[in-house]
């Protein structure tokens, strides 16, 4: 009877007590384990984190093993090919080169300090967000600083330290379809200002009414990135060096008014960068001007068979007489985490890649991935970016134009910059979207400036 009732679940006082105790015990153990593990998380304090600046020094014994993270794809293959050259110079350093989804893995790795790589390839705009976890490279970079493009040094500089080894420079260029423009009697090389560009677009539109000569970016993210290229050309950016917003300025108004004019006069093709509409209109001669970073060169080389050889590149038009003819759009650097096991050896690897003639020639020169060399960016280190000593060869898609010289000379004109705020990507919800609304015709340039400024200040800047 007793046994039966027990199976039915009716409580025997002693057993019931035991079970309750055991349950509470199990819960207690779980909670204790969980809470103990939770203590491994960040310390919660006043928020005044010690801003200790640890400056990396070059190693005295170049031997050991390093793990280097790069994002998968062509660049990974290019860097992979350089390791052999590196080992000719440093035979006692073993490089474990890993293709990693850096955006997904880096943050967690730095937080947990587990399996931290010795060096990581990272977009310039992301470097400031990780600065607390990185080595300050000021001392090791010091011998090279004078020869590195100022914009690259600036975007990697936070609170007096330099937290990335500046790698590539991505100058903005004006890509144009020379064959199409010539058939309309337009000499693109005569374009020196954005007013000239507008006039050339009007002339082409008159010649070919179905054209939308100038590219207008439809992706909110890339549209904002392109806006920052124009701003960089004018020596400004979304924030100043103190992190204060400066969208509400004559420079941004000038840029937005230009874009608005292109749209209102029907002089633009609004399409997502190298999406189906973009490719079709570029290859049909409807879209003939693309103000974009050097990496647009991929398009004419790989995606535009009908107009292969018709494209050329030139420096961007100037916003004012004597103004800079280029601005930066994108770019990457190499970072070395503080928790890296062999940070000094990682520095030697990057020093070879960026500053050693054999290293940068192996990266940008002809290789198994790019038989004619890597031509989607140029080095940010001046001795490597010598206009008269091309690292990559002439580009068939650009009619064998000296694309190296064009890109290097444009790169030399990029004004200095400031670090990108960590919330830059978040601003796309406001500034990036508002640019699109302006191109839709539902906002004016002034409204884009005022609404974006207020929203970014409230939702991003004030919440830092």
């Amino acid at each position, binding site marked *: 009877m007793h046994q039966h009732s027990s199976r039915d679940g009716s409580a025997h006082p002693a*057993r019931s007590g*035991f*079970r309750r105790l*055991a349950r509470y*015990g*199990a819960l207690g*153990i*779980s*909670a204790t*384990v*969980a*809470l103990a*593990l*939770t203590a491994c*998380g*960040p*310390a*919660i*304090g*006043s*928020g*005044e*984190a010690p801003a200790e600046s640890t400056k990396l020094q070059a190693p005295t014994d170049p031997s050991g093993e390093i793990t280097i993270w790069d994002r998968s794809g062509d660049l990974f293959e290019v860097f992979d090919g350089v390791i052999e050259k590196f080992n000719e110079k440093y035979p006692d350093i073993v490089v474990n080169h890993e293709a990693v989804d850096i*955006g997904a893995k880096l*943050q967690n790795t*730095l*937080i947990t300090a587990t399996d931290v790589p010795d060096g990581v390839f990272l977009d310039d705009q992301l470097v400031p*967000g*990780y*600065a*607390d*976890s990185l080595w300050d490279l000021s001392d090791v970079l010091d011998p090279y600083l004078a020869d590195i493009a100022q914009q690259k040094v600036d975007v990697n500089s936070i609170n007096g330290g330099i937290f990335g080894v500046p790698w590539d420079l991505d100058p903005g260029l004006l890509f144009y379809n020379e064959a199409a423009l010539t058939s309309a009697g337009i000499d693109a090389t005569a374009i020196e200002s954005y007013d000239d560009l507008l006039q050339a677009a009007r002339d082409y539109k008159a010649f070919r009414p179905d054209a939308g000569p100038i590219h207008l970016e*439809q*992706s*909110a*993210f890339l549209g904002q990135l392109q806006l920052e290229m124009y701003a960089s050309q004018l020596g400004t950016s979304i924030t100043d060096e103190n992190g204060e917003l400066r969208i509400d300025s004559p420079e941004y108004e000038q840029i937005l008014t230009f874009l608005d004019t292109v749209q209102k006069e029907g002089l633009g093709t609004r*399409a997502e960068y190298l*999406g*189906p*509409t973009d490719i*079709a*209109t570029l290859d049909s001669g409807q879209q003939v001007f693309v103000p974009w970073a050097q990496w647009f060169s991929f398009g004419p080389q790989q995606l535009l068979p009908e107009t292969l050889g018709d494209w050329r590149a030139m420096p961007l038009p100037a916003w004012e007489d004597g103004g800079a003819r280029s601005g930066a759009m994108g770019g990457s650097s190499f970072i070395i985490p503080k928790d890296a096991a062999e940070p000094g050896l990682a520095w030697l690897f990057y020093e070879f890649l960026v500053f050693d003639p054999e290293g940068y020639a192996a990266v940008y020169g002809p290789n198994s991935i790019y038989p004619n060399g890597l031509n989607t960016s140029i080095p940010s280190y001046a001795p490597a970016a010598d206009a008269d000593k091309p690292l990559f060869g002439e580009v068939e898609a650009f009619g064998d134009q000296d694309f190296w010289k064009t890109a290097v000379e444009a790169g030399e004109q990029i004004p200095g910059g400031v670090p990108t705020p*960590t*919330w830059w*990507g*978040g601003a796309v*919800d406001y500034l990036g*979207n508002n640019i*699109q*609304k302006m191109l839709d015709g539902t906002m004016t340039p002034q409204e884009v400036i005022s609404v974006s400024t207020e929203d970014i200040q409230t*939702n991003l800047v004030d*919440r830092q």
Partner: protein
Amino acid sequence: MTAPSALGFRAVRRAPQQGPRWSLLRRRSAPYLFIAPFILIFALFSIYPLTFALRLSFTDWRGTGAATWVGLDNYAYLLGNPAFWASLANSGILWLLIIPAQVVIGLVAAVLLNNAKLRMRGFYRTAFIVPFVTPLVAIAQIWVVVFDQNYGPVNDILGAVGLPDIGWLTTSEWSKPTIALLFLWKTTGFAIIILLSGLQSIDTSVYEAAALDGASRARQLWSITVPLIRRTLMFLVVLQTLAVFQMFAEPYVVTQGGPYNSTTTAGLYLYNHITRADLGTGAANSFLLVIAVMVLSLVFVRLLRPKD
């Protein structure tokens, strides 16, 4: 025979008492010992992340350095932020576009596939499940091309019958239906499999009896099939509700949440906080989302639970 020592005597005296008690203890503790590994793993991979995230949600931690305790600030910010509500609304609209259609299409397809007379059943079952196992990135790329406003085949077909081009992925009005269509296409095969398993648990004699009583196919579907698979339907709806509110990859790959955040789902909005290193707000967002999904799930469980 020697006299027992004091110790031995006690041992001999205690043995009959301690034996059963020890055995009882072992017997009672056995289940807990068996589940102990699970409890440990559960604590490590479920309770720990949960408590960690809960703790984060009250801080302004950005992934590095010390975190500052901000109390309920992150929750207050989200609850007062139109973008948070818009992301929930986007997910809600997607739910309306997806779930009813998926249940109807899935049920009809499952009933057809359950018919023993249907030829090539294996082929159809495989065909329905293929989109579910195809990598989303590949499908998304096809979606981008097929639904391109100017050069996509969908608009070409519309144009051929005199209809205007539609900005499937470039206008706020059409972006949600386009994403919903992608989700439907990808996951309806899964819904069919779930419903099919429910259908196969129904005794065929029930249908035979109904047929003898003169019940039509439609009547059988409505009066026998649907009531008898209510539990399966409930499971499917709750599961897919979770999937829709956590939907991330589809808008991330196809529209990046645009245009104008019209496809920024609750899952994508949460992800955006994380990628911007606003981990505290992201954690708070995740708990608000859990509450919302839990409430919705309970509603569906209540509505769809079998009446008997």
